[in-house]
């Protein structure tokens, strides 16, 4: 069931590539807007790069949250999934993982290229990529709660940002913090360990909370 739901969501994403590409290009455009707004001063840009890339990744991941459940909700698949004897939490975990594979992984792969635009040194690029690799699944998992709560609501897209963005703050702090620590020549392991801890904790609790949110939304 778990593998099946991931395969199914991936297949759906492959059939509708425009969705994936929209998220990715949103990420690229947001990151590219910053030099245009603050000026091409390289030292300034280098200092801001980790924060900018992380904020853009946060927004891109959040914007695509609406798709996690809404298509299945519209055509009634979600209701069938709720009725199935399999654990709903596991199913939500599968959907969040699929969401990460579809939106998170492209962001992670694109991040080094954008980092080069900001003239980041090579090891900072590696840490930026690694912190995104660890952090973006947490975004998908926490986002699943928000997506499940706002399912089928008026203006759900804006609402989900109000619910989810405050909860993303710790990830943002430690994700961008790891890169900044490395650039400042300080130990950065602690930041990455904390993101890893968030990942483990959210893997346990977020699917459960999102599953009960789905039950509330589909009551």
């Amino acid at each position: 069931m778990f593998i099946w739901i991931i395969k199914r969501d991936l297949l759906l994403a492959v059939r509708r590539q425009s969705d994936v590409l929209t998220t990715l290009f949103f990420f690229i455009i947001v990151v590219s807007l910053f030099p245009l707004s603050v000026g091409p001063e390289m030292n300034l840009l280098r200092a801001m790069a980790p924060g900018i890339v992380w904020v853009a990744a946060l927004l891109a991941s959040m914007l695509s949250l609406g798709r996690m459940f809404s298509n299945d909700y519209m055509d009634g698949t979600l209701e069938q999934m709720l009725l199935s004897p399999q654990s709903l939490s596991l199913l939500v975990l599968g959907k969040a993982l699929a969401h990460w594979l579809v939106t998170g992984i492209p962001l992670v792969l694109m991040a080094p290229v954008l980092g080069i635009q900001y003239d980041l040194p090579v090891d900072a690029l590696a840490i930026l990529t690694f912190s995104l690799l660890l952090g973006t699944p947490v975004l998908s998992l926490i986002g699943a709660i928000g997506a499940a709560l706002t399912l089928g609501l008026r203006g759900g897209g804006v609402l989900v940002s109000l619910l989810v963005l405050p909860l993303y703050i710790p990830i943002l702090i430690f994700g961008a913090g790891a890169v900044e620590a490395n650039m400042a020549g300080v130990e950065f392991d602690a930041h990455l360990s904390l993101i890893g801890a968030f990942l483990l904790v959210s893997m346990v609790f977020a699917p459960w909370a999102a599953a009960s949110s789905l039950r509330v939304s589909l009551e």
Partner: protein
Amino acid sequence: MAINWFKYSSPASFYSLAGKMIPFFTVIAIILLAAGLYVGFFIAPTDFQQGEAYRIIFIHVPAAWMSMFLYVVMAFWAGIGLAFNTRLSAMFASAIAPTGAMFTFVALWTGSLWGKPMWGTWWVWDARLTSELILLFLYIGFMSLQAAIDDPRRADKAGAIIALVGVVNIPIIYFSVQWWNTLHQGASVSVNQAPSMATTMLLGMLIMVFASWMYSIAIILKRIRVIILERESHTSWVAELQKKGTVS
């Protein structure tokens, strides 16, 4: 003697109980408020370091305490409502949220009024200020989620889940913000070493804290009565109240 603890968990009987309690708490709140402001503005001595500007603490500190305390109370009632499916608990949670958000806003606002003469700036990205701001976001998220859902039962449960997720996250957010702040020491101003306070200052502040509690209880009960009437408008007991003319 067996007490029926659940008597007042029915909205109908709680409605009349709340009606009796409101005047009591309102009067105490007004008395304490007057006493607290009098002590704060006329009796408490001028601070030798901060001058008169320190007097903002008589509003700022109670507001900041209430803002955090009320979020926990809100999440508690939301959790009870979710677990035991009691209607009144969920109503409590939605009645607390606007008051909590108001206190959060007051704390931020008075804080920046104090910050201008003391630190020379309206805002610093200090750990406490930032966490308080995030707390405001959490309140607003809770209220806008409830406002967006038309079905009250679904609104209660969805709000309960987000309140509980928020309350689990508050310590995480607080400590990450604090750590983030210590990494970027440059611009921040330390607010950790509070100078020791004169007894009258402390007394004034404590009176104001109790005044805020009484005010919160009164206003939350008032709001809960409105929520009860709104949700129970189809029932016979509300129709009877309307006939008597006590509710229009």
